[in-house]
């Protein structure tokens, strides 16, 4: 058997593939954070909770309304995103003119409220969400058995990332958005409804988190605390990529997934910590992150 760094080739390739799947997932989550921060300058500490709400909405929608996975994949981001818009309109807007740190604290508080409330109704054990029939089973890649659903997660997450990047960087709407956050008075003078644009953007970022939540529902037990542990990892990804950089979030997400995956083979004990180590190193060398612009 061919060996790579003391590990059989097949295992190495398998880990690389899994790292990529996780990385796509990180990319999707950090993308939402990056959109919200880059365009709105809100440090969305509720992102983990919104991801969790996405998973819960899928679960409850199925349980009580019979909404299937595919419908949930479309409906849940809209519903949770809409809820996000209400948050922006009635809470975040009131502190938009203040230091960014207040946004961080406000969303942190909101995350505590969401999680605590759901814990009281659903406990913490977590519930199962069935994998849709067509995505059950797995693919034999020769070097590993890859569950079809994970392959789907990789494809869906990457497609969503590309779509978002295209929307913001390559369309007229995206251009308005970037301009509106750069100089809102000027844009308003041109007749663009900037506050509405901001509300929509926040809703979109939250929708991305909810989309990730629906994708995650069949993978992990759906529990109120599923987002809080993920949140700081995703934050680290965004910081490494450069806060606000859309492309940076996507690429860093993928890269971190792979680095974490390899750590799981060579020094599994540190796999939760390696991202923070990378983050410190990156910030030492490039204070604004890998893809960020120096403020």
């Amino acid at each position: 058997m061919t060996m790579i760094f003391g590990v059989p080739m097949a295992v190495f390739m398998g880990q690389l593939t899994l790292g990529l799947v996780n990385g796509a997932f990180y990319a999707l989550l950090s993308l939402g954070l990056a959109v919200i921060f880059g365009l709105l300058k809100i440090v969305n500490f509720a992102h983990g909770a919104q991801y969790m709400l996405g998973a819960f909405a899928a679960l409850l929608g199925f349980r009580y309304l019979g909404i299937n996975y595919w419908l949930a994949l479309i409906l849940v981001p809209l519903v949770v995103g809409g809820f996000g818009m209400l948050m922006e309109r009635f809470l975040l807007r009131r502190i938009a003119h203040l230091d960014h740190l207040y946004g961080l604290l406000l969303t942190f508080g909101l995350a505590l409220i969401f999680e605590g409330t759901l814990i009281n109704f659903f406990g913490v054990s977590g519930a199962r969400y069935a994998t849709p029939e067509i995505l059950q089973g797995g693919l034999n890649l020769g070097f590993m058995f890859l569950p079809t659903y994970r392959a789907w997660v990789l494809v869906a997450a990457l497609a969503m990332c590309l779509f978002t990047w295209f929307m913001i960087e390559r369309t007229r709407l995206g251009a308005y958005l970037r301009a509106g956050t750069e100089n809102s008075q000027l844009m308003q003078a041109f007749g663009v409804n900037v506050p509405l644009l901001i509300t929509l953007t926040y809703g979109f970022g939250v929708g991305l988190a909810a989309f990730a939540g629906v994708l995650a529902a069949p993978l992990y037990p759906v529990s109120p605390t599923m987002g809080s542990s993920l949140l700081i990892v995703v934050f680290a990804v965004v910081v490494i990529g450069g806060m606000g950089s859309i492309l940076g979030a996507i690429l860093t997400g993928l890269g971190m997934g792979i680095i974490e995956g390899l750590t799981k083979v060579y020094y599994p004990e540190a796999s939760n910590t390696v991202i923070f180590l990378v983050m410190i190193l990156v910030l030492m060398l490039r204070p604004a992150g890998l893809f960020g612009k120096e403020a």
Partner: protein
Amino acid sequence: MTFMKKTLAASIAVAAASSMAISTAHAEISDGEVRIGYLADMSGTYRDLAGPGGQTAMEMAVADFGGSVNGSPIVIFSADDRNSADVGANTVREWIDQRNVDMVGGLVASSVSIAVTKVLQENNGLGIVSGSAASSITNEHCTPNHIHWVYDTYPLANGTAKAVVEQGGDSWFLLTADYAFGHALEADVTSVVEANGGEIVGGVRHPFPTSDFSSYILQAQGSGAKIVGLANAGADTVNAITTASQFGLTQSGQQLAGLLIFLNDVHALGLEATQGLLLTTGWYWDMDEESRAWSERYFEETGRMPTMVQAGIYSSTMHYLKAVEAAGTDDPETVRAKMAEEPINDFFARNGSIREDGRMIHDMYLAQVKTPEESTGEWDLYNILSTIPAAEAYRPLSDSQCPLVQN
């Protein structure tokens, strides 16, 4: 939620009772009341294992006992330890200093239990640990002031590992949670597997907690071991089992062995993912007529079937109250001695007795999770395969490091 209303009502009743001046105080019962504290994780990871349901079980025991001992009312205080040793130890310190609490029950997270038992030892209190897994609680951390009920890692790991090796599962890959508890479990399993002629072919220590186990499952698949042992607990075990089923671990001929898995975990995971899993349990709600009868009453109160911990809380509270009644006092030392004198045989414990290290030993059971086809209901989850006699189940006193044991 009717259950919450009931808890509320019960708490109000308790508050009212404690504020009333008790004129009929019994001479030997301190303050004229038997005061019990229920300390558990009410909102975090272990909520479903013990949590509010454990409090209900304790309240049922008090109500079944008649609400008073020799004319002195029984009062329950309860608090959430939020899985923090700090909060737990402080709560108990205050209960003892300010409210003269006579016994503290519940006690789930091992770190909280160890911290609390130190406080109890210093203040000459009495604690009954029902939810904790760590066998160190009656080993190097033993005190004359507490009793460990229900289970610990020793019978769970040993019972399961031994049975699995005997059935031919002689090569193991271990997924170990990377902290003291996981390491201890790993060491226990390794020695049992090797003593029975099996071998450990590999393993990985994963961070605690971990949500994505795919990488580790892949490594386990690559190892060629027949058995993948889960030396972890709670959410980690649940996540590992979910991932294993996604990766077709069992289809490819390997088998999972859960070393620390509870009814609520299996219920949450569903039978599809857990079927065939071997595990050791201290009790199962459907194991006989007596257990079913009690569990159905519990179900009416809470809407869930009880875990072994919740049943154990009822059993231990009942045994405590009987000892108080027999001793005629709630003095911790006297009651502790009285409790050890009496054997325990109720719906929960069979052939139960309390050893000098504070370990309550009783029969344990090897169980296998049912297949979805076998199961007839939401809570119909286990087949009990065999009984592990009390004397064999727990760590022998000859191996004990507890200073209370004379070796």
